[in-house]
């Protein structure tokens, strides 16, 4: 499911759905990952809070133990993880540029009036892709508009876009890295057959899409939580009911010094649960005596 910029609401809905699906079972451990991992860990009471790079690597290795390269493209960021002798050897994450991510595709698909789910099949129908500048999402869009006006077929433009994204990804993230097989492609964008085809074409290698490609981060976090809880400690998990309580987050500017940090505060029924975002630790360390954000 998509957070749609509202992580708390998305989490609530997700937990509600899970509770309905699972029925009355005992949860022995819980883990969170991704950019909202701190927020989610406070709400559900997580046993581990893990960054998405490690989580993705753990998950991929569990499914394909001999994996050497992980390509991951999500909505807002993309990563490459290189493994050697069964351990993470190197990784890279996209910097400020969004041209190599899912949101880029989303945007271009909606411009072309194609549902994102069908985007890939359009690409596969093309036999002469159009060259689109993939360096920058903004320039790619103007390039694409130009190509449309020139009268190129939509299929060819879509395939060109897939190639542009892959080219940008490989130039940006994979620069100087040895991409060896087996290669796993995970993250939401792995659902796009056009991108997968473009990767295989550019690399000249086979790309495997794992079964749980779209939730590999969560799968990895679950595995890490499981490993920790095997030492039979009590879980921090607050239960499904706790997740359905009323949570709200708000930000305010701290006026303590001229850094004017944007402090984020998480409330439940007017009770302050956690705060973070301050540079000095004045607010984040105030509650429960521990900083919630790994610093």
């Amino acid at each position, binding site marked *: 499911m998509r957070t749609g910029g509202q992580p708390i609401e998305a989490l609530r809905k997700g937990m509600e759905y899970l509770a309905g699906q699972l029925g009355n079972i005992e949860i022995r451990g819980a883990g969170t990952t991704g950019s909202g991992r701190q927020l989610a860990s406070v709400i559900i009471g997580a046993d581990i809070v893990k*960054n998405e790079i*490690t989580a993705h690597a753990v998950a991929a290795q569990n499914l394909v133990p001999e994996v050497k390269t992980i390509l991951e493209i999500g909505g807002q960021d993309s990563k490459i993880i290189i493994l050697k002798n069964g351990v993470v050897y190197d990784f890279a994450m996209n910097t400020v540029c969004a041209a190599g991510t899912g949101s880029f595709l989303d945007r271009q698909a909606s411009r072309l009036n194609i549902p994102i789910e069908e985007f890939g099949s359009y690409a596969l129908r093309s036999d002469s892709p159009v060259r689109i500048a993939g360096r920058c999402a903004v320039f790619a869009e103007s390039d694409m508009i130009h190509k449309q006006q020139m009268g190129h077929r939509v299929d060819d433009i879509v395939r060109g876009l897939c190639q542009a994204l892959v080219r940008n990804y490989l130039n940006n993230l994979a620069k100087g890295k040895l991409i060896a097989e087996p290669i796993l492609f995970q993250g939401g964008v792995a659902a796009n057959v056009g991108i997968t085809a473009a990767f295989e074409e550019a690399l000249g290698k086979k790309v495997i899409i794992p079964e749980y490609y779209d939730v590999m981060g969560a799968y990895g976090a679950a595995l890490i939580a499981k490993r920790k809880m095997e030492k039979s400690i009590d879980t921090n998990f607050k239960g499904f009911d706790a997740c359905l309580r009323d949570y709200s987050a708000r930000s305010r500017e701290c006026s303590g010094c001229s850094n004017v940090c944007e402090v984020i505060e998480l409330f439940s029924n007017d009770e302050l649960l956690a705060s973070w975002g301050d540079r000095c630790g004045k607010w984040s360390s105030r509650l429960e005596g521990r900083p919630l954000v*790994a610093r």
Partner: protein
Amino acid sequence: MPAKVGIPRSLSYYQLFPLWKTFFEEMGAELVVSGPTTKKILDDGVKCCVDEACLPVKLFHGHVADIKDRVDYLFIPRLTSISKGEYICPKFGGLPDMVRTSLHGLPEIISTEINLRKNKRNSLKAAMEIGHYFTDKDSQIKSAYKKAVGCYNLVKDNFEKGYIPDFIRPGKTAETKSLEKDRNLNIALVGHTYNIYDSFVNMNIWRKLENKNANIITIEMVDEKAINRNARQLPKKIFWNYGRKAVGSAMHLLNEKNLDGVIYVMSFGCGIDSFVCDLVERRIRRTTDLPFIVITLDEHSGEAGLDTRLEAFIDMVRWRCTDKK
């Protein structure tokens, strides 16, 4: 009343402050140093500086704005070269002009050129020129210069032994630093001093690493003789002062068996870093198996991105350490 000399806490401050401090105090001047970097200083700098400059240069402008109304002189030397046969970033040479054209209502700027590329003795010549702002007595300037150089060397020597001087100490770190055998992880933090020791710009990378039980080693903690010995092995001489130190110290540390990983901190858009970072990375990849990561600092880099990268990097280092055992 003594003349007030303003020194921005930026760029060369992180390397040369002990020199400036002793010299100006010996000249009977009162020093005013801008405060540690804050969001306001950053905003002020970004507002007035030319858009194309790198973040550290923009910050320099902010630090000037912070003190310009409180001092009689601003000390912005025109640094062309600070070591024989080597250059530094050309922007250092243009700083006085950039500041003059970008900021208004400035006090007098002491912008003496310091160029030691051809001759080390040019530093005394520069000192005489600066000193004449405060006194006519050449002997007083000479003795102040001697004392300042002595003080600078002492701080530098102690730094090489692992003692981080007070004027740049990031966070609480006070103990002597070295490659510790019993410590959890030894991480080399390679980068320009003004990025490595400014905890605002580097988003508290020291605290973040130390909270993960990492022991940090920087270029300044490596014996300069060892740096030079290693840098000489390169097929071609690096003509930047920083470049020699960064590559030389990295090469030296790579041979230390207790080193667990290297983090290269660079400014977005830095010309020198773009070369040096690549040189360091190639050395590491070709000669070792050490974990290596580049952290790029920019005005709009989010803290979450840094946290994720550091966490994943430390995970990777630990994963490999346990795998070796």
